[in-house]
């Protein structure tokens, strides 16, 4: 029998029992669908995490004020001021920490900013010129701070693309004046758009020189840095060494003895990303097990239905054998049927997975990924399930005795 005829027979047999075929497929549909959606979602989540840290810079660590604990009640992160401007200078000194490339202070607060036309609530950052270098962030109009302007106390501001859109809907922002806490600032640059990330709109910010920030928003120069230090390293793999050096340096400078805890915190986003990655990988493994179980159960469903089908069609098998069908012809017929059942289930599963991935991407704001490689493997596995679980019923069908089968009464 040629393949086309066999396929036609199989599809017709499945079509005759549409509802039953569909129900049988469901196990495989959901198995495959779940795998595709979850793998796609996992990739989307991973990509968005990766994107965050790429924007932050993979070779960046953050140094923050420690938490204060008084009477057993621990304050939040940065509740105890300990980082000083001298600390910043010390970290920057290659004699102390040779792996450090740049150090930028980063202070921030929520604030209302306004133009003549509009006003907008956004995050205002105070930092220096190197922060733009660490973030590798350039201006699309005007310019970011240079060494002089960044270290000055001028009332100038670099604004994000979103802020520009909100405050200056009708035109260019550079050269215009915005007001922050009632004070006028001249816009000297508009930043390149970085788009939306999982932590919100990355273009929704205003950056002013750190000295101006201290004078105007913190009312006076303070000894302590009410924010964090963003430290960039010479290369990505120096995280541990740099953290150790900075820890030693700061403990020494803060005169902490061995019994005292650090009064500062150091965070390595790359480590965080790695931990994130590890947990995603663990979840991926769990998903594979769940998928395997659901495909196994789906396969048993296929086998069950094929066994029923063989019994129901005993007479048909007898007739086919009488007119010249060999055992292998009968076996092929049933095997192709279960394969087709599983393959259609697999295809529907791919469609379901695609939809699921789309939905998740939209819902969580991830980039949409269709994991083509996984999809292909999943489809092949579905086909394999059809063959493996269809084999026993098919062999049983082919072993029927034509005389008995012909006499079989349904």
């Amino acid at each position: 029998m040629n393949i086309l005829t066999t396929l036609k027979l199989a599809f017709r047999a499945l079509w005759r029992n549409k509802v039953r075929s569909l129900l049988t497929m469901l196990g495989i549909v959901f198995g495959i669908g779940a795998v595709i959606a979850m793998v796609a979602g996992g990739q989307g989540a991973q990509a968005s995490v990766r994107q965050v840290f790429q924007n932050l810079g993979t070779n960046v660590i953050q140094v923050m004020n420690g938490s204060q604990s008084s009477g057993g009640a621990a304050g939040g992160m940065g509740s105890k001021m300990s980082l000083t401007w001298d600390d910043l200078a010390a970290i920057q000194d290659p004699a102390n920490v040779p792996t450090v490339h740049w150090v930028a202070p980063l202070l921030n607060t929520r604030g209302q900013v306004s133009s003549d036309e509009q006003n907008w609530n956004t995050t205002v950052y105070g930092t220096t010129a190197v922060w733009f270098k660490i973030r590798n962030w350039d201006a699309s109009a005007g310019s970011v701070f240079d060494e002089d302007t960044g270290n000055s106390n001028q009332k100038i501001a670099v604004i994000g693309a979103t802020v520009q859109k909100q405050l200056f809907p009708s035109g260019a922002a550079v050269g215009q004046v915005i007001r922050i806490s009632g004070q006028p600032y001249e816009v000297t640059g508009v930043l390149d758009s970085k788009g939306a990330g999982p932590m919100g709109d990355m273009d929704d910010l205003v950056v002013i020189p750190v000295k101006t920030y201290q004078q105007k928003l913190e009312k006076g120069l303070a000894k302590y840095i009410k924010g964090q230090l963003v430290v960039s390293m010479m290369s990505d793999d120096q995280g541990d060494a740099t953290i150790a050096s900075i820890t030693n340096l700061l403990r020494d400078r803060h005169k902490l003895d061995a019994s005292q805890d650090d009064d500062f915190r150091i965070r390595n986003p790359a480590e965080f990303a790695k931990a994130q990655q590890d947990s995603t990988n663990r979840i991926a493994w769990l998903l594979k097990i769940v998928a395997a179980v659901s495909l196994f159960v789906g396969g048993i469903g296929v086998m069950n239905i094929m066994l029923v089908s063989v019994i129901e069609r005993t007479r048909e098998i007898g007739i086919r054998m009488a007119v010249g069908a060999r055992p292998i012809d009968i076996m092929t017929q049933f095997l192709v049927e279960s394969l087709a059942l599983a393959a259609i289930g697999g295809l529907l599963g791919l469609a379901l997975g695609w939809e699921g991935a789309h939905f998740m991407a939209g819902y969580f704001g991830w980039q949409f990924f269709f994991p083509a490689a996984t999809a292909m493997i999943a489809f092949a596995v579905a086909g394999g399930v059809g063959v493996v679980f269809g084999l026993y019923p098919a062999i049983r069908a082919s072993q029927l005795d034509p005389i008995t089968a012909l006499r079989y009464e349904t």
Partner: protein
Amino acid sequence: MATPLVEMRGIERTYVMGDNLVHALRGVDLTIEQGSSIAIMGTSGSGKSTMMNIMGCLDVPTKGTYALNGRDVSRLSRAQLAEVRGRMIGFVFQSFNLLSRTSALENVEMPLMYQGIHAADRHKRAMAALERVGLESRSDHHPNQLSGGQQQRVAIARALVTEAPIIMADEPTGNLDTKTSYEVMAILQGLVAQGKTVILVTHEQDIAAYARRVITLRDGKIIDDKTQEPLDASKAVAA
């Protein structure tokens, strides 16, 4: 003398049923020439079904040899038997045994599928076979849309389509009324006239009357083998 179509020598067939050994055939010798019209008669339990199964290559004998068109088929595998059936034998059953929810044409095409014949060719040959039984206008009807006589004619077309030399008809009129029975017998007699060997398996004397040679089995042995002038079924149809 030409090789006989069927040549059975010392055929025995025993079954194990529970603890008992059942001797269905106890040494049958039979020769059938091409173009014969034969009725195999006997009561139930006489061994005529076993005889038909072995002759139709659905079963193999426990002892003895069976040469079909000169080829020994008594020790073939299941797959080989299937191929022999496909090429040499067309079956017509009492209960028609057509595939339900499948058109008459596709039922007739089915044996050709297993010979690897292409769709277009299959279609042409099946239509020709349906024409031979006068059902070309019903080719797209499903069995449940056909009368009993029409269903049996589809079954005959299915037996004819492979150009097999032997038509084995097992109680072909058992489920039909008298008039339709005559029609079916007339078709089968017409096939003999065209050179086919038609083997009727029946327990009814008046059906056997349409065959030229009547073999009677009892207790697994041939007890009678006579030649007669057959009745003409087409006259019965006309009457």
